[in-house]
């Protein structure tokens, strides 16, 4: 997982690089929660661009983070869902509370402003 934090926007982006299952999700949860607590972001985006496999463990993982982020008053979004990931999220109804956004557009906007950025490979 790679983390990008945009200071001015208080935006935290997690780019997930691993296959998502019950095994990998334990680490992802731990790492994401740590960063969320550390940065107290206003907005968290999970980027699925590099996710080649996901089962239902991904649903629980994202909903769990959505709750964490909600506690500190932030919003959670997902981006770059492949067809199979989208299908799994849709079945659970999750996309109704955690919307999919166009990350490319969003980043164009953000990177046009002066925005100090921090990148960490978790």
């Amino acid at each position: 997982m790679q983390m990008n934090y945009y200071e001015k926007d208080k935006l935290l982006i997690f780019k997930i690089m691993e296959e998502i299952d019950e095994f990998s999700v334990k680490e992802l949860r731990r790492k994401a929660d740590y960063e969320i607590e550390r940065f107290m972001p206003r907005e968290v985006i999970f980027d699925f661009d590099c996710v080649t496999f996901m089962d239902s463990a991904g649903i629980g993982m994202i909903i769990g983070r959505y709750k964490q982020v909600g506690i500190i008053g932030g919003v959670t979004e997902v981006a770059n869902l492949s067809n199979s990931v989208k299908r799994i999220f849709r079945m659970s109804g999750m996309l109704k509370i955690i919307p999919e956004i166009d990350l490319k557009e969003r980043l164009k906007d953000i990177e046009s402003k002066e925005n100090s950025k921090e990148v960490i490979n978790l």
Partner: protein
Amino acid sequence: MRNKITDNNMKLEFISKSNNEAFARISVAAFVSQLDPTIEELSDIKTAVSEAVTNSIVHGYEEKQGIVTIICKIHENEIFIQVSDNGKGIENIEMAKQPLYTTKPNLERSGMGFTIMESFMDELNIESILGIGTKVTMRKKIKQTEDDEDIPVTLEEALRG
């Protein structure tokens, strides 16, 4: 030209550790790939296997260590997959099959496992006896499309013979 597959089968047993999930679904996918599935069919099968294996590990054996067994059979263009454990068993199968129903919300389980298996495979059957174990059986037909290599790529090529 690919080889015509007649019947084939395999059996896989492994310890109920969640780091075996990737290995289990890759093995099944490698076995199924003999049928020349599409990428989507293969992805559906991997996901269904991952769900069933996770259930045996997380719900069947919980913290204990046991053996998860996968049996795969190929018959003509159909794949048959059975995932079983000797774990605690399911009290109410009908309830367990409901979307979003889970007995482990604290572990962030979503309750979507059986729903995904049911919708990604053609058929799902669950047998379970409390204290004895659970056996999940799934079937899926692989739609055999014409083999790319036999189809001339352009009309020109086709005419050239």
